């Protein structure tokens, strides 16, 4: 497109660009039909409707505390949930909900020792099975690993951990919040529910130019060329901008245990008096890392492979970022089939 053509098209492109940004929140995400199975406080367990369940073991999806779990079911045609349903899995989703100030007392122990096992119990009741597969992503993976370490021989037969932070030493987060001058308890005291927008801002500051400028500049160029993918952009942008608050106590524990003291990888986390010993994880385990992940960098996940006592451990490493790996346009070809295949071999009754 020559400069004159660009100039002629610019006003139309400007209107379209503005429209893309302004109507972002109208994008439909997480639309696969599902039913509520169980609720407790803000947590909700969903079961996705399906008429083609062929694998015995249900799959329970667990996402992080700082973003919404709709990323598992981003939009029709680009939904991991949809893919799993097509592959014949009975899919459940644990949604942590939107904690408010009244949930400031929710800590990591509540999530690992109450909400997760209760959701697992309800998953088993609803599916009529006595075992399941747990799939955790980001912090959700860490919570799943903590639960598995506390409950060896429990109902979780398979663990799938996607871009999961384990060892945070040397990470950029550790540099920011691990220092003495950053006091997470003061944060939790002032903000009983730490605003998700603050956490999101910090995440974006890791790559400031890319996140605050290049994204929009690229979008503008695509609009100008008439190549902007409205649904793809808006669904992802809406998901990125939707950040639930982090309950104060859980925030303080997460920062202290993971970034200040790096306890998890050293088996130093104690939940309700019980030590979270990664060596006690004995389930079949699939660990997925992303080569360009700057939020949970690959070197921070790999120690897990040596620490667990599982006999069946698989590691998949793929190019991509923390979220793009599983929700990007290439995920359907690059990673979802591998996960489904791994699960299939381990999901018979």
């Amino acid at each position, binding site marked *: 497109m*020559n*400069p004159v053509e660009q100039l002629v098209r610019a006003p139309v492109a400007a209107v379209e660009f503005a429209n893309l940004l302004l109507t972002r929140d109208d994008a439909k995400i997480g639309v696969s039909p599902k039913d509520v199975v169980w609720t*407790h*406080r803000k947590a909700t367990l969903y079961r996705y409707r399906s008429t083609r369940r062929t694998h015995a073991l249900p799959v329970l999806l667990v996402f992080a505390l700082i973003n919404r779990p709709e990323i598992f079911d981003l939009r029709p045609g680009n939904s991991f949930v949809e893919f799993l349903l097509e592959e014949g899995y009975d899919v459940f989703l644990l949604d942590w909900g939107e904690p*408010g*100030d*009244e*949930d*400031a*007392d929710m800590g990591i122990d509540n999530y690992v020792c109450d909400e997760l096992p*209760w959701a697992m119990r309800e998953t088993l009741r609803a599916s009529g099975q006595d075992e399941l597969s747990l799939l955790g992503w980001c912090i959700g993976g860490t919570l799943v690993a903590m639960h598995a370490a506390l409950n060896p021989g429990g109902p979780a037969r398979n663990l799938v951990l996607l871009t999961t932070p384990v060892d945070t030493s040397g990470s*950029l987060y550790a*540099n*920011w*919040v691990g*220092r003495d*001058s*950053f*006091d997470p308890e*003061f*944060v939790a005291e*002032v*903000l*009983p529910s730490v605003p998700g927008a603050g956490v999101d801002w910090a995440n974006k*500051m*890791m*790559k*400031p*130019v*890319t996140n605050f*400028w*290049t994204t929009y*500049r690229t979008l503008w160029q695509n609009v100008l060329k008439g190549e902007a993918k409205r649904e793809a952009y808006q669904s992802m942008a809406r998901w990125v901008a939707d950040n639930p608050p982090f309950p104060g106590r859980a925030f303080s524990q997460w920062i202290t245990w993971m970034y200040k003291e790096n306890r998890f990888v050293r088996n130093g986390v104690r939940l309700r008096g019980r030590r979270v010993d990664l060596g006690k994880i004995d389930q079949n385990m699939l660990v997925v890392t992303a080569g360009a992940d700057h939020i949970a960098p690959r070197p921070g996940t790999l120690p897990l492979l040596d620490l667990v006592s599982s006999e069946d451990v698989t590691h998949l490493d793929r190019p991509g970022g923390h979220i793009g790996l599983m929700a990007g346009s290439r995920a359907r070809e690059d990673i979802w089939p591998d996960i489904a295949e791994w699960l299939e071999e381990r999901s018979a009754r």
Partner: protein
Amino acid sequence: MSERPDPTEDVRRLYEDAEKRTADAMEELVKRDAFGELLARATENILALTRMGNDVADLVVRNLRLAGRRDVTSLGRQLARTEDKLEQVLQEVERLQEQIADAERSSASNGTTRRRSTKSSASK
């Protein structure tokens, strides 16, 4: 004859190169200790100001005899605790139901065995 380079393309390439360099430089900048320290201190200052603002707002609202954020939170917390207890009671009920079902199943199977044994003894 070689093609003349497109000046628009040159400008675009130069711009993208500059943007890439700026992005790399900024990523290096945020990795520095000084940036981390600045971020920590700035966060502390913002939080301290937020706390002062919250305290003043809460004082005003409470003196107007209106429910403030703390009151609403306190109410929400009571509800959450009630829900915790309800969940525990539900789990206990479910556990008891399962126990009763197990007991009924085992007594039913014992009854069947007894009836069979009675029958066999009668036929003798």
